[in-house]
C-alpha cells in the first residue's frame, strides 16, 4: 500500500499534500483529546508496533505480498487524531530511511494509511463498542471489524489513486506517464486481496492487541470523549 515515487502524477501529489496539510494541522490541535496524561508512551509504542508489523510481508503464493498496518489499534488507544500523527511519523521514517513509499507520494500514503484508515476504522469501532463496558465483547468485535474496514477502505483509496493515473497523464500514443494500470485493474487487485486476506489479518492483529489491553489496562479503552468522573475536565 506504500505508493513509491514515480507512480503518482505531480497533480495527484500536490492535491494530496493540499488535503493533508490542513489534516495535520487539525491533528496537532485535536490530538490532545487522545493524549491525556499518560498516553504519550502508548502513542510511541503504538507507532513502533505499527512500523514493526509492517515488516511482516505476507505472501499470496505466486502473487503479491501485503501486511497489516495497525492504524486502528492506535486510533482506539490514543484517538484518531493522535493516530494520524503517529502513522505519519511511521510513514515518514519508512520513506526517508528505507525508501518504502515515496517522498513526493508521502502525503498520498498518509491520506490512505494515516487518515482514511484510522478514522474509518475508529468510526466502526465506536459504533459497535458504543457505551459498552471496556471488557465487553463488543469492544473486541468493534476492534476486529474496525481493523478490517479501515485497511480495506485504505486499499480502496490507494487503488483509486493508482487507477486514475492513466486518465490524468498519458502521451499521444496512449502510454501512461505514471502508474499504468486503469481503475478496472487497480481496484480489483488491491481491494480483493485486502477483503480476503490482509483485512482479516488486520482484524486479528487489532483484536489481539485490544484483548491484551482489556485484560491488563481496560482504562485505556475508554474514549477521551467519554466523560470520566475521576478525570478532571481540561478547560479549553
Amino acid at each position, binding site marked *: *500500500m*506504500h*505508493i*513509491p*515515487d*514515480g507512480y503518482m*502524477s505531480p497533480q495527484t501529489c500536490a492535491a494530496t499534500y493540499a488535503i493533508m496539510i490542513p489534516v495535520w494541522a487539525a491533528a*496537532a490541535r485535536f*490530538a*490532545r483529546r487522545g*493524549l491525556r496524561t499518560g498516553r*504519550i*508512551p502508548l*502513542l510511541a*509504542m503504538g*507507532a*513502533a*508496533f505499527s*512500523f*514493526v*508489523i509492517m*515488516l*511482516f*510481508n*505476507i*505472501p*499470496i*503464493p*505466486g*502473487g*503479491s*505480498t501485503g*501486511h497489516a498496518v495497525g492504524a486502528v489499534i492506535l486510533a482506539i488507544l490514543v484517538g484518531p487524531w493522535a493516530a494520524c*500523527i*503517529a502513522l505519519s*511519523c*511511521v510513514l515518514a*521514517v519508512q*520513506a*526517508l*530511511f*528505507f*525508501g*518504502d513509499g515515496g*517522498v*513526493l507520494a508521502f502525503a498520498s500514503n498518509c491520506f490512505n494509511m494515516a487518515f482514511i484508515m484510522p478514522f474509518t476504522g475508529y468510526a466502526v469501532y465506536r459504533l459497535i463498542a458504543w457505551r459498552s463496558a471496556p471488557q465487553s465483547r463488543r469492544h473486541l468485535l468493534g476492534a476486529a471489524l474496525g481493523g478490517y474496514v479501515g485497511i480495506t477502505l485504505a486499499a480502496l483509496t490507494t487503488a483509486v489513486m*493508482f487507477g486514475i493515473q492513466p486518465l490524468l497523464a498519458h*502521451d499521444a500514443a496512449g*502510454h501512461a*506517464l*505514471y*502508474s*499504468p494500470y486503469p481503475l478496472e485493474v*487497480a481496484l480489483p487487485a*488491491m481491494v480483493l486481496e485486502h477483503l480476503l486476506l490482509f483485512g482479516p489479518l488486520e482484524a486479528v492483529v487489532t483484536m489481539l492487541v485490544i484483548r*491484551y489491553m482489556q485484560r491488563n*489496562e481496560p482504562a*485505556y479503552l475508554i474514549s477521551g470523549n467519554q466523560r470520566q468522573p475521576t478525570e478532571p475536565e*481540561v*478547560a479549553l
Partner: protein
Amino acid sequence: MKEKNLKRLWMGIALLVLLAPLGLLLPAAFNAGDAWGEWGSEEIIRRIGYLPRGMMKTAGLWKAPFTDYTLTGNSAGSNIKGSLEYIFSGLLGAGAVALLSYMLGRWLARKENGES
C-alpha cells in the same frame, strides 16, 4: 499505564523485530513478488513493455540510505545476511518512529498546558 505492562509490551515488540525476517523469507519461499503497485522499473518494463516517461523522472528522486530495509541499499536477498540487515532496519526504524512520535506527543501535550 502500569510499568509492568509497558515493559512487557516493549519486550513483545522487540521479539517481533527478531521474528521480522519471516516477512522477508516467507514471500521468497512462496514465490511472491512485490506488493501491488510497488514494482521497480525492471518489473514495470517486464509487465507492460515500457517504462512510463514521467515515472522515469521522479522515481529516483530520494535516495534512502537503507533502501528496502538493507544496510547498503543493495539487497542481500532472503538469506542470513539479508535477515540480519532486516532486523537491524527493524530496530533502527522502530526506535526512530518511537522517538519521533514521543517527541511530537510531548510537544503537543505541552502546547495544551500552555493554552489552558
